[in-house]
């Protein structure tokens, strides 16, 4: 029984780490996979989602609707940013990353000026459940389900909708897609918007579990980076398996040495992995299939 107990405890921790990595990375990965662009303001979109979620929830909206609002607002801001900045930097991925860093800095500090150094949050809903000798947060299980839901949703969006087909055509052969009458600029703008909305969703989902501060994006950004680096450019063949592997690394290290070593061990694991797999897990899978 004790064995079963700790097995479930480990599984819970793995699921928790997996969910965090998937949710932290999915928005970044969609944008990177489709556009080859790393959005360094990713953390600030997460922050934005969290702020909107908390504000609307405190104003009386039910939490799920608050989260939706956070996601939509982040997505809308993402599309505006794409129009104002990103669009002018296509073909210059290195400059894009630098420019989005400037956006990130301005957004964090701007939020600090406008909304102060912290904001009262909303409590974690749903309470907890006990299994064996451990007690678990029910909301964390909801987050795990949400991570799976996001993956499933993205799969459907890219494989079963017209937008998905156009988007995949645009990544693979941009000029061909253009010749076929696809407005690639619109596709890019939408993609960036979706990435931002996913970040906002993540912020909204984690808002009840965190302190709401302007710098909260940093909590996610390192995990998002390493997941995308290990995963490579494909969200399904890369991000999801990478999150699983890294989630396992982090869960093992966390239960062995604590939270911090979980995070740092993650980074060390990543640096070791890239030495062997420069194009990430999706590169490996794609090479095997090619």
């Amino acid at each position, binding site marked *: 029984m004790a064995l079963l107990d700790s097995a479930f405890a480990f599984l819970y921790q793995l699921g928790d780490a997996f969910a965090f990595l998937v949710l932290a990375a999915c928005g970044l990965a969609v944008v990177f996979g489709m556009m080859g662009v790393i959005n360094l303001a990713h953390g600030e979109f997460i922050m934005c989602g969290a702020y909107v979620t908390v504000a609307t929830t405190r104003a009386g909206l039910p939490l799920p609707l608050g989260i939706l609002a956070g996601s939509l607002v982040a997505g809308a801001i993402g599309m505006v940013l794409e129009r104002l900045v990103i669009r002018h930097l296509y073909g210059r991925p290195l400059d894009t990353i630098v420019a989005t*860093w*400037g956006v990130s800095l301005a957004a964090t*500090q701007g939020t600090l000026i406008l909304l102060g150094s912290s904001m009262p949050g909303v409590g974690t809903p749903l309470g907890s459940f006990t299994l064996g000798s451990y007690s678990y947060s029910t909301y964390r299980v909801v987050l795990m389900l949400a991570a799976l839901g996001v993956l499933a949703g993205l799969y459907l969006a890219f494989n079963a909708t017209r937008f998905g087909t156009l988007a995949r055509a645009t990544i693979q052969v941009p000029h061909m897609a253009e010749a076929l009458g696809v407005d690639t600029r619109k596709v890019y703008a939408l993609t960036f918007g979706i990435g931002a909305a996913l970040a906002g969703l993540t912020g909204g989902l984690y808002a009840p579990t965190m302190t709401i501060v302007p710098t909260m994006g940093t909590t996610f950004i390192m995990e998002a980076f390493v997941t995308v680096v290990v995963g490579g450019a494909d969200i399904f063949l890369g991000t999801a398996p990478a999150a699983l592997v890294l989630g396992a690394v982090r869960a093992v290290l966390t239960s062995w040495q604590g939270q911090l070593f979980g995070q740092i061990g993650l980074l060390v694991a990543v640096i070791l992995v890239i030495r062997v797999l420069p194009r990430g897990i999706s590169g490996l899978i794609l090479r095997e299939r090619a």
Partner: protein
Amino acid sequence: MRRLLRRLEGPQTLGRGPAFWAAFAIVLALAIAYPSFADGYTVGNTAYFFCWVFMALGLCLIWGYGGALSFGQTAFFGLSGYAYGVLTLNVGAAYGFTIAAVVLAVALAAGFAALLGYFLFFGRIGGVFLGIITLSVTLALERFMAQTAGPDWRIGAARLNGYNGMSGMPPLTVPWFDGDIVLFPDVALYYGLLGLLVVTYLGLRILVNARFGNVLVAIRENPERAEMLGYDVRRYQLGAFVIGSALAGLSGTLYTAWGQYITPSSMGLTAAALPVIWVAVGGRSDVTATLVGTLAVLGGFQALTIYGSQYALVVMGLLLVVVVLAAPEGLVVALMRGIARLTRKAAAR
């Protein structure tokens, strides 16, 4: 020796000929005379600016010349700063040990850069991935240092002190015949740093115009072709990364010695953005532009912090966006090219 001096100007650096070096001499003379017509606080503050320039020059070498995005230079800055603190808090400042501590701390930063760089460059990590991994490294270091509160986290006599950071280390002290000269952050430190800065600047000019610099820009322009000219691209990139990171480490020790403190936030996301801003705004592809740009942006930043540092940071962030969009080569480079064009026109007339 004469061959080295000839490398002071060349295709990789803006500014050449008697006019440029005359201007250089005038600026240097002004810098030397500066403490005699400024008060001690202002001079110490200028010394503070100088502390940062080494990191900017290092990033210029890695990013501007080598084409490798390193967003985590603050990792080496912080590591080296902490190392200086740990060494001097344990050993003290006697017999010029602070100087030895600077050397050791910089060597530690260089060693760490060599290890990390080995995995990155020999793993053929490039482009955006290099940027986000190095950034992740500095964020991880910040997180690590931030949780070292409590009496358990100590190295010898040095308490790491978590988020509040380490303080109370001795300033730089030069042993002299009739007693040590302590370089408090005023005139003495100013001259020490000015000398170091001039040597570093000229040394980098020689380096980037030498064969090493030729290969470095070749790799930036077309790594495949550079390899097919028989150059081991990985070694050159690693070399630039180690030198640039050692300079970041030098900044870290000087900063720590200047203010006698170092905190984890010196390795955080905001701190990591600043060198990128200095170098991008000045012009990453040229050491002179980086030097001038860094000092100008630091000065402007400080002037803005009168209204609060968050306002200054918003302006810095927006400045970075605008520069990338409107003048990707950098403001100082654009200006210097403009001047060169005008003088050429004037000469032609």
